[in-house]
């Protein structure tokens, strides 16, 4: 018999043991929780610090070293701070503009994405490439020409410049929608067409329910963009009664050529209230948001 067969002088090949089996479960679990805790702390501490500042009195804000817990809890900051900027009125203004803009952005982008993915027409690919290219155009570049357009139309000091552009589609949303619709099997359209459904009927009755994660994702993103928009309301709105919350929050930040410290306690208190609607929207819709982002890579096989 050969030396190999007897196993003399030759080591048998090692089998690779998976990492999950090499590292003890306890160690891996502790590492995982430690990492999650670190990330959670990084995200939560600024928020908790905002609450801390919001509850402090004027002479407590610039303490050194900074103290997390206020020496006295001034709950009235949550009333007096928002009152300074007429918060309820600005809140209503912002809700109207945001909801209408969100509806416009989602509707127009879904329709455009559906057309690009499902309807055959000349120049379909060219349009798709144009929309994709538009994603990379910085929005700041288009401010002056769009300003001139709206000023020429006499739409200064109205909400139209803030709302109307959303009804012409968002390039990123159109791209997302087109990719999502491609993943939906064509057999669905075909069977609906055989039953006599038009393209719009297919879109409304079949595609919209099937693509719920997509348009909820779009709604969340569109809501955030419109809710936080500062530059457009600044440029187009002149009357304080029409201002949005973003402009109202900016008025806390002090005068222009001096470095006067803002009233941070009022600012943080108002900011916390300002943050609530997008936070609530995300919490209620996060399942669909994750599904929406996760489904983008799927294709119809």
């Amino acid at each position, binding site marked *: 018999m050969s030396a190999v067969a007897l196993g003399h002088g030759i080591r048998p090949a090692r089998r690779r043991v998976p990492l999950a089996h090499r590292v003890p479960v306890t160690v891996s679990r502790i590492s995982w929780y430690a990492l999650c805790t670190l990330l959670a702390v990084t995200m939560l501490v600024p928020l908790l610090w905002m609450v801390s500042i919001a509850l402090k009195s004027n002479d407590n804000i610039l303490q050194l070293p900074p103290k997390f817990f206020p020496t006295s809890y001034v709950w009235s900051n949550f009333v007096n701070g928002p009152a300074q900027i007429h918060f309820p009125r600005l809140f209503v203004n912002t809700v109207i503009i945001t909801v209408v803009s969100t509806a416009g952005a989602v509707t127009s982008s879904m329709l455009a994405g559906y057309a690009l993915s499902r309807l055959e027409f000349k120049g379909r690919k060219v349009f798709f490439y144009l929309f994709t290219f538009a994603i990379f155009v910085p929005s700041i570049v288009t401010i002056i020409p769009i300003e001139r357009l709206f000023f020429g139309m006499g739409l200064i000091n109205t909400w139209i410049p803030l709302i109307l552009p959303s009804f012409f589609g968002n390039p990123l949303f159109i791209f997302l929608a087109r990719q999502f619709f491609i993943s939906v099997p064509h057999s669905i359209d075909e069977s609906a067409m055989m039953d006599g459904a038009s393209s719009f009927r297919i879109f409304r009755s079949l595609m919209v329910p099937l693509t719920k994660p997509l348009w909820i994702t779009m709604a969340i993103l569109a809501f955030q963009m419109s809710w936080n928009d500062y530059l457009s309301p*600044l440029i187009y709105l002149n*009357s304080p009664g029409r201002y949005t919350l973003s402009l109202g929050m900016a008025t806390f930040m002090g005068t222009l050529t001096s470095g006067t410290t803002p009233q941070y306690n009022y600012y943080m208190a108002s900011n916390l209230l300002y943050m609530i609607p997008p936070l609530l929207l995300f919490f209620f819709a996060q399942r669909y948001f994750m599904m929406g982002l996760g489904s983008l890579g799927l294709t119809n096989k």
Partner: protein
Amino acid sequence: MRRIKGVVAGAAGALMALGGLTACGSGGSSAVGGGASGGGNTVTLVSWGTNEQINLFKTTLSQFTQKTGIHVNIIQQPSNEYVQKVDAEVLSKTLPDVFWCQNSLEQELGSQGHLYNWSSYMSGKAKGASSTGLAASKFSAGSLDLYRGANGALYGVPNESNTYGVFYNADLFKKAHVPLPTAHWTWPQMIADAKALTGAVSAHKGPGMQTVWSLLESPNGVSFYSVDNGGKPLAEPSSLVGVKKVQVGPKFMQGAALLRNAIKHGWITGPTFTGNTTEAEFINGQVPMVFGGQWIASDFFNAKPKMHWGYAPLPAGTTAQYAPAESNGFCSPSNLKNPLATWKVISWMDAHGFNYAYRRDPIAPIAYLPGSSGYLAGVKAQGGAAGASVEATVRQEINDKDALGTMFLGSWATKAGNTTTGVWNPALAGNKPLAPYVSKWVKAVNSFITGS
């Protein structure tokens, strides 16, 4: 389920309709646009003031309305991206009747012909102008010149002024056996005090003086040293409007060397120091001296620090003690429909309005000296030696007959600022040789001026 969907759809549709109607309508507060479309007995005034200041302005302007019958619609504009907003209003021809403007913004818009020329009103020649009582002779030295264009037209009326000096922790001075700064302390004394107080706070061990405003270590700041000691200013005229060239002489280089030496030894912070936490550190007794503008005092008063502190003016030289000439202003569009009513509003604010507002919320003195009494009283009323010290220093500087501009005001100013960052700052910080780099800076800035 269908019923719920129907209700939601109905609510969404109603909201969209409401949004559409409100977007198109002209409800709510009246639109701005007094300059282009306003007139009559209503003047629109735009300010970047804080919420508290706006409320105070509203109160004083209601008294003005009772007296004159002129209604003032005051609108608060956020200071963030203020210039962008004004540019949009210029484009849409909706500039308000009168708006707060920085000096640089006024110079830019004035040179482009967008601003109203107040010369005839300031001189009292325009009909009805003299009745308001605003006199050119009662403005602080140099402040009116800041708002004149190269053609001599007055494109703005100065309002809030700034003064500069050194806030000091009196307790740390006493502990270090260093005499407190006086009203006419000198440049060498300031540097010596910073040296003596370096490392004075055992837990901190930092420089004796921190600079939260870049003026002191800038070329314009060193120009103050030069003129204080009998030398030439960096540029002429003293307002720095319409500068034809910059120049440095022996006294200027002496001042630059003095500051460079102090920075190199760590007695004062360098030109790139940002000072984000300086105010908090001063309030908590950790910084002996802070160079900055008088507006910081309001933060110190609000914080109620436990230490004794004061405010000293810009130091004196061997021959003079120049004060800074720097202020914001009121500007109006060139197509102003109601100049007399607007002039009355401006005059009221400068002569009475700020006295009322800044007595209660002291932020800045006013370039129109009779309009500063409210601010000075307000500061003094904050109490103690600190209040008296700030009041005395600000009063001294705004009444100083010798004044020098603090910033370049031309289309080349931005490029000059970039060159200061890239060439001047390393030289003053001690990282590059001083004389060759100052010469390089002068050459570069003069080329910008010539090319503009």
